[in-house]
């Protein structure tokens, strides 16, 4: 999106900076809420203030000139490319949050099927076969050398 003065807004960057600023501010307020003693704030408070100052210095980068080449690479990315990235991120979230709920075997298999499809494997039988073999191999291979047992449903 361009503003009247020939500048555009990089929305993704704005969201990232907002997240960083919110996290830093919330952390500083939480730390100050816990205690105002030096032993609590000695490093956290100056570092948080420095981070907020630096965030203010980064702010102009979110509104580059419309003819700026800086964001050209990102602009060359299609909407479909970005959707694939978001699907992969969502699938990884599904894996991380469901491992202990549905079992490592089911969660891994589903993630592999979705991951392979999103990353470009079009042959469904290769996808299913690779995902199944990889899941079994990983659970029995990795499972034997890790100190914690993996919760499983089928295997």
């Amino acid at each position: 999106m361009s503003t009247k003065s020939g500048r555009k807004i990089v929305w993704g960057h704005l969201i990232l900076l907002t997240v960083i600023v919110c996290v830093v501010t919330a952390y500083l307020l939480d730390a100050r809420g816990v205690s105002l003693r030096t032993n609590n704030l000695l490093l956290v408070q100056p570092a948080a203030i420095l981070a907020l100052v630096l965030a203010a210095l980064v702010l102009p980068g979110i509104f580059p000139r419309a003819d700026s080449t800086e964001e050209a690479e990102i602009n060359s990315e299609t909407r479909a490319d970005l959707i694939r990235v978001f699907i992969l991120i969502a699938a990884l979230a599904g894996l991380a949050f469901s491992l202990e709920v549905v079992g490592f075997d089911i969660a891994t298999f589903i993630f592999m099927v979705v991951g392979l499809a999103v990353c470009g494997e079009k042959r469904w039988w290769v996808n299913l076969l690779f995902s199944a073999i990889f899941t079994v191999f990983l659970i029995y291979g990795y499972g034997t050398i890790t100190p914690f047992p993996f919760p499983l449903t089928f295997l």
Partner: protein
Amino acid sequence: MIELNSVFGAFALLSSDINAWLYLLPGLAIGLIFGAMPGISITMAMAFALPATLYMEFLPAIVFLTAIYTGAGFGGSVPAVLMGIPGTSSAVATTFDGYPMARKGLHNEALGIALASSVVGCLASYVILFILIVPISGVVLKLGPLEMFAVAVWGMLLLGSLAGTHMSRGLLAGTFGVLLGTVGMNTAGFVRGTIGIPWLLDGVPQIPAMMGLLAASQLIGLINTTYLIDDEGSRKISFAKILGGVRQTFSHPTIIFRGSLIGVIIGAIPGVGSSISNLLSYSETKRNAADGDTFGQGNPKGVIAAEAANSSSEGGAMATMLALGIPGGGATAILLAAFAMHNIVGGPSFIAHNKDIVYAVIFSNFAQAILLFVVGLGFVYVAGYVVRVPLRFLIPSVLVVSTYGAYAIEGSSAGPITLWVFSVLGWAMVRYGYPVAAAVVGLLLGSLLEGNLLRTNQISGGDFIGYGLDRPWALVIFALMLGSILLQLISKRRRAKEEALSAVQSS
């Protein structure tokens, strides 16, 4: 410094016990394989093998465990170079230039450089240990929180050089990392930023966060790419090129020497170790290199600096463990446990009465380093085939392995969830020009900085300067740091003058 009688005793011990040699190769192989798996730390590999040593004699048991230590130390560098995943925290700096080299099709050379630097660093550290084990242990006892703080500040200087094209974004990433590194309960008992999540009391899980920031974020960004290396011709695995990398390493003896020295000294400090030494060595090499601007884009010197330091940290950590009985980290704690399993107590009395065993352990490590070169060559040759696997298979597979590794470290979903959060953060940071490496350094150093700053504050009663003036080793560290910065400024100015002069002459 060296007692010849004990040296001869060590030779007698090693030549009379064939078992001490038989366990070298399996130890190295286990270490290499475990170390190369994301999330499997050196400590975990050694803990896995510890029960097996119960029925061994003392010397073969220690040789077996130290072989795993050596193998895993290098094993972590293989995924760091090939996929940008630091297998262990000591391989973080290896990813800075190793991975860009691999992406450029220089994976063979990068692996050869990493192997040769590791072998030479390991050898150098044990030579230093052989000569200086007693004085080093004396110095370590004099190091307090202020000295540790000075070392951490030195590590923080790396942030400036990692900042890349946008200094403010680099510093913001680093400061944000430091803040995240202080989440949880600090050493004074204050609990901050846990948002009610119990597992955050111990802080943000560092290894899953690091894997997410450095590796998973890169993998997510590669979704629209077919192979790690675009050019098909460059994907070949070449033994000659790996050896070329080995040769290239030896053309930079200063970097190896500096890295080894930093590795031994920092490795000897309990609680600091190889995860900081590789960053310090990288930062010092970048600062002193004429082509410092190309660091982070695939400069072999960066790989040499990081690998020489992280492998030589092993010697430093062993010095503290053998001479003082203090485990500097998880790996040396396992070694002390092996000592205890054989009814031997490490520490000053052990070194005083068993110098022959100490020297035997040191000599067997010389052999380990040389053997690592042979085994490692075969290992990197096979591992190099990763670049020929299509990314549509590699991306989901590596993401799952990283998730399992994160689970293996934490023993709960805390690891995978941390990995996911930091993957998304890392992907967004890379996308908008924030150096994730700076955030990783901040995250690694955050709690170290705060803990030692607090202890210094408590001991000095707030009078940092007065207390600092009474601590000669802290002053030495700060002086070395300032000296290094000054030297860099002088050499930069000299180079600029020379360039200006040559420009005038050529026109």
